[in-house]
């Protein structure tokens, strides 16, 4: 009995001396340090990703003589880097969401004003001459003293339209085929179903470039060489396996009950698919549509190989030839074309990003 009483006594003393305030302060400090550390790391790794885009835009809007002016780059950096650090500090240290938003707004306004003062006078839209002047090459080259233009450029809007057609039709075909195929693979039993599912993934694993010569010959024999439609078919073939796989996963997530319910409610199989099942895989459709479109928009190797006439140029080819002719001569125009090329992808992602983050990949189920 005495032994247990001895054990109890010191414990009750210790209990009395606990200082909750110190413990709370310590854990508050630890939480803050961790937050600051995490933000610092994230900013450090994202700088190399953010900076090139920033420079691209800066050069495109400022290079008057075709040369990236270091002065402007440094000045804009001098605005951007403190602004990012300020954002980070506000994000890490502000306790309330409202205070954080107010802080962000203040920084944005301040940075905008400093930017206008430091960089504003150097802004220059002349690099976007290619948007209005098909024969811009001579105009640009004459800025550097040269006069001979070597490449016959089509209008950039023509290339833009070609890219839209290419990416758009490829997306339309991929979405239609992948939805139907994914539904069939998800819902129906047929011989070779599992093998099909496995081979879909294997198909995706092959490096597509290895097939470039056979594909060239194939398109030549079919007569689709140097046509947009030929490239569209090739891109669709390479995009489909993955898109089908993603759609199959989305269809797997739609309960059977709902489909059965639609059938007993008087819908045919096709009506049940269109009215009940398809609306529920909307996110999947948006996801594969965006991925396919971006893939078609940025496509370079196949268009470079299979398209020859300059009326068939897509934006990537346009970009390539501009770079080929002007690099070392006029960085401003190259950057401006880059910015112009970038805008649609950016818009698309901005609109669709909330759907893209919901993609989950299902496993291969038998």
């Amino acid at each position, binding site marked *: 009995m005495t032994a247990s009483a001895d054990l109890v006594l010191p414990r009750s003393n210790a209990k009395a001396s606990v200082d909750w305030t110190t413990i709370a302060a310590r854990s508050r400090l630890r939480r803050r340090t961790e937050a600051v550390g995490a933000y610092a790391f994230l900013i450090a790794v994202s700088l190399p990703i953010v900076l090139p885009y920033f420079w691209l835009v800066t050069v495109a809007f400022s290079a008057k003589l075709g040369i990236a002016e270091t002065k402007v780059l440094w000045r804009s950096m001098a605005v951007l880097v403190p602004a990012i650090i300020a954002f980070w500090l506000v994000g890490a240290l502000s306790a309330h969401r409202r205070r954080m938003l107010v802080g962000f707004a203040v920084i944005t306004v301040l940075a905008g004003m400093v930017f206008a003062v430091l960089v504003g006078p150097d802004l220059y839209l002349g690099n976007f001459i290619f948007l209005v002047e098909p024969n811009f090459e001579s105009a640009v080259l004459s800025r550097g003293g040269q006069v001979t233009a070597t490449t016959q450029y089509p209008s950039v809007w023509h290339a833009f339209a070609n890219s839209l057609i290419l990416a758009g039709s490829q997306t339309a075909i991929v979405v239609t085929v992948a939805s139907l195929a994914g539904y069939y693979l998800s819902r129906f039993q047929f011989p070779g179903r599992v093998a099909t599912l496995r081979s879909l993934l294997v198909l995706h694993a092959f490096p597509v470039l290895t097939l470039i010569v056979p594909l060239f010959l194939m398109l030549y024999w079919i007569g689709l060489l140097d046509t947009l439609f030929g490239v569209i078919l090739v891109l669709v073939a390479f995009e489909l396996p993955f898109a089908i796989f993603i759609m199959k996963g989305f269809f797997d997530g739609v*309960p059977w*009950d*709902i489909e*059965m*319910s*639609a*059938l*007993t*409610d*008087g*819908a*045919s199989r096709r*009506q049940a698919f269109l009215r*009940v099942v398809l*609306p*529920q895989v909307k996110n999947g459709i948006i996801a594969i549509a965006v991925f396919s479109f971006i893939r078609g928009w940025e496509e370079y190797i196949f268009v470079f190989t299979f398209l020859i006439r300059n009326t068939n140029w897509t934006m990537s080819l346009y970009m390539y030839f501009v770079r080929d002719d002007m690099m070392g001569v006029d960085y401003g125009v190259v950057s401006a074309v880059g910015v112009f090329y970038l805008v649609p992808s950016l818009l698309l992602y901005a609109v669709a990003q909330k759907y893209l983050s919901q993609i989950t990949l299902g496993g291969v189920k038998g």
Partner: protein
Amino acid sequence: MARIEFRNLCKRFGEATVIPGMDLEIDDGEFVALLGPSGCGKSTSLLILAGIYMPSGGELLFDGHVVNEVEAKDRNVGIVFQSYALYPQMTVRENIMFPLRFKRTPADEARERTNSIADLVQIGELLDRRPSELSGGQQQRVALARALVKEPQLLLLDEPLSNLDASLRLSMRTEIKSLQKKLGITTILVTHDQVEATTMADRIICMRAGRIEQIGAPNDLYHRPSSLFVAGFIGSPPINLVVGRAENGQFAAGSVALPVEGAAGDVTVGLRPEHLSFGKSGLPGRIAQLEPMGREVLYVVDTGIGYVRVLEQGSSAAHASSEEVRIAFAAEDSLVFDSGGKLLECARIRPPS
């Protein structure tokens, strides 16, 4: 409204036979429960009735016409799934109107019918919400409204209450039953919950491994179960089953022998806890555990034939743990099954005198 008939109906999935051959008749306007453990083929039967599955053999008849090959959309069957299966992208109103679209019901009439059916199941004020904004009980009502709005000739309920909480389950049970009586629609309820089946249905079809074990009114299944399986499945708390041997008018099990009549050989004796009581004479034992259940107390008694559950009326326990007791019962409440698990109609067992 329809009369349903199964004639030697069977269903196979590849190698597996789910229903080997089923004969069944359900009358017009009847409320029938398909009762059985999971995997016994009751949901498969339901989907065959709905036209989702095609039978592999035999015939399914609606009002005397073979409907084996009639598609689900043409059967005019309403179904309520356990998951409710509401269409998440549509409002409640659109959900309920969905079946009417395929019937080409004029818009005015469709709206009217939707409103009146919504009032009937008391969801009139929820029509513009989405299913995700509703509670489980409300979703259940929407599913019921959607199944009823097309005035089906047959209503199928697949475990409709198992996702609801206990008190809601009780009130929905009453509501569905009175709705069925009011509308007079032939209704088939699939459930693994014997209480649901006995409280709601006019007739229970007890199934086991794709076969019908017994068909009868809830009382028949309780008082005269045709087999050990039905006896064990129906009743709560479950029946006491004692395996032993009947010889020379004595049933011997464990260290005890009880007088028996009408049985010989290996038998199983069934005694329902609610038919047992404590008395001055009877099977001796010692109370091992008490489980107060509110209105009743369940005693687990350690006897010479093993643990026996005894259900006694009264909210407070009249007996204490480890008390010595004697268990009495009436001979006509006892059930005796042969070694194959079939009920021996005339066999009775008596408590020791």
